[in-house]
């Protein structure tokens, strides 16, 4: 909050294709320090963000993931400057930007519904930011061409936004936000208005553009597939609270709590009691009386009750008697690329098993008895 007058100026870097950062410890692009946001006052106050702290590295494709209403957009808007934080500090490359107005932040946004200027051509839309930064005319022309080529829209430079399809508008919105070569690009569910095929194609393309430009992307989505497939790291949020920050593998394979486990993919939860001293592995006794070995790296020392977590694709089926426990097939759901089976193993909740089309798996029908293998490495004790 101090000396902001002196530190605001060096915010605008040079054109997009700056060299990819040389190897070495990654710089921190964005630093959130106990950021809180409360909308409204008194009885109508809504706490949209609660003590959010994490770092986003330079050149990173970072995703904010969470269910509707968890505060993703709010967080993005505080980064862009559309919303003031109620408390906490946001630093951009070390500089506190809490009091820097929107138009002085070297951060650009791709809006959910594109928000292209309807009275300007595609080229003028893309040039808008550069013109406000008073770049020389020939440089503007060059950058606009380059950006339109980057998003494969060079043939549409003279069209108005209304004459473009949704996917094309999305590309222009991306070019417009990238043109001033921001230090951080914010994307609020940019793909949600596109149809499935286009969305999947755009995922690839966004990822490539991020790699080519080397700009830090902060991407908001409530779609876990999108988050897992595109991100370098993901922050999972719920009701204004940060749940976990980690790589897609960490988030998917080692969720820290039940919310993250359940939100990022399908999950089996088995409630149990810890029956041995806490170590790397523990023995747990389930409600149904099973003794199970589980990975306890995330368990806390005094923990007694535990929730065991297991991804459906980590469960194997075998001949009756050959598995950890025998179960009865309740239901089978054929999904094309895989089959989901619901198996009753005598626990309060039945176990969901995902089998990919493997010819060696025994074919079974509802009512069949099968052996269920609960691998102690895949079975994890979740933190409280």
């Amino acid at each position: 909050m101090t000396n902001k007058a002196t530190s605001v100026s060096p915010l605008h870097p040079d054109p997009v294709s700056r060299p990819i950062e040389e190897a070495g410890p990654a710089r921190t692009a964005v630093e959130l320090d106990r950021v809180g946001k409360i909308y409204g006052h008194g009885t109508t106050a809504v706490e949209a963000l609660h003590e959010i702290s994490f770092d986003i590295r330079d050149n990173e494709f970072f995703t904010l993931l969470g269910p509707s209403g968890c505060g993703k957009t709010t967080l993005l808007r505080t980064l862009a400057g559309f919303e003031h934080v109620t408390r906490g500090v946001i630093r951009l490359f070390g500089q506190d930007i809490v009091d820097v107005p929107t138009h002085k932040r070297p951060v650009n946004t791709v809006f959910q519904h594109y928000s292209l200027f309807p009275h300007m051509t595609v080229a003028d839309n893309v040039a808008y930011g550069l013109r406000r930064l008073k770049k020389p005319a020939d440089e503007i022309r060059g950058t606009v061409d380059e950006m339109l080529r980057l998003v494969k829209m060079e043939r549409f430079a003279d069209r108005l936004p209304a004459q473009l399809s949704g996917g094309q508008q999305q590309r222009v919105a991306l070019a417009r936000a990238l043109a001033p070569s921001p230090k951080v690009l914010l994307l609020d569910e940019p793909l949600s208005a596109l149809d499935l095929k286009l969305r999947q194609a755009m995922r690839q393309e966004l990822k490539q553009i991020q790699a080519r430009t080397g700009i830090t992307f902060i991407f908001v989505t409530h779609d876990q597939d999108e988050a897992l497939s595109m991100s370098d790291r993901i922050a999972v949020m719920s009701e204004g609270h940060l749940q976990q920050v980690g790589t897609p593998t960490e988030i998917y394979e080692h969720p820290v709590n039940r919310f993250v486990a359940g939100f990022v993919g399908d999950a089996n939860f088995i409630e149990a009691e810890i029956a041995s001293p806490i170590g790397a592995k523990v023995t747990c006794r389930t409600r149904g009386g099973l003794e199970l070995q589980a990975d306890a790296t995330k368990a806390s020392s005094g923990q007694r009750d535990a929730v065991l977590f297991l991804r459906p694709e980590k469960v194997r089926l075998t001949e009756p008697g050959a598995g950890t426990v025998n179960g009865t097939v309740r239901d089978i759901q054929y999904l094309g690329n895989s089959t989901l089976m619901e198996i009753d193993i005598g626990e309060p909740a039945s176990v969901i098993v995902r089998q990919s089309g493997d010819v060696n798996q025994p074919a079974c029908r509802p009512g069949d008895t099968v052996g269920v293998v609960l691998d102690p490495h895949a079975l994890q004790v979740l933190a409280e």
Partner: protein
Amino acid sequence: MAVQVDVPPLAAPVRKTEKRRAFGEVPGLATLAFGFLVFLYLPIAVLVVYSFNAGNIVMVWTGFSTDWYAKAFANEDIRKATLNSLIVAVSATAIATTCATLAALALARGGSFRGKVVSLGVITLPLMVPEIVTAVAMLVFFANLGLNLGLGNVILAHTTFCIPFAFMPIRARLEGMDTTLEQASRDLYASDWETFRLVTLPLLMPGVLAGAMLSFVISMDDFIITLMVAGAGDTTLPVYIYSMIRQGITPEVNAVSSILLLFSILIVTAYWFTTRQKPGAKSH
């Protein structure tokens, strides 16, 4: 083959019965509507037709001529009144539209402030105040102040009653405009002023034009307030027409009225075209 031939005749009768049913819903509605239109527009049509009458007895047709128009244009008083009307309408429109634009911006984009609802009421209330009340109030107000600016008084009075008319379409346009466009502008390094000049105002323009044209028409044909407020040399066209009638109705009155009507029709048509335009700001 036979099946194909059967298809078109089948489709046509269906459409016909539907049409008939839509009109037959309320018996006699079509006649009534027609009668109403005649009642509304026949007098005006007669006025326009007789402005081209050659003779000088108003309701006796003696042949076509444009003499009365020539005469009206040659009439120094009519020229002066027309000029006054235009000066007043243009000035009042300019001032009222500017005020209305600023008011609409403050109300729609100024965030929340105390007295916001009251402000909205205060701006639109004059639409509901009887014109004669406004007229008398103006007269008394100017008299008490001793304000005597000639045509200036008329312009002031017209500005006040034009503001709500200009305000309505501007506000409607602004309410329908996506605020994220302005956010996008700010996000792309535009200051508040640049955002207003480059994004808000261009998108608001159809609303501003509509408001201006509405003001212009309202000002052009205002009679009661002008009659009260205008001094001797500051007569506007409607007031002048009224004074002409008191001296007896001549086809010249018809001609002048027709000219005034033409003004209104032109402006209203232009208004219709600007408001009908596809909204530039997409709702999402």
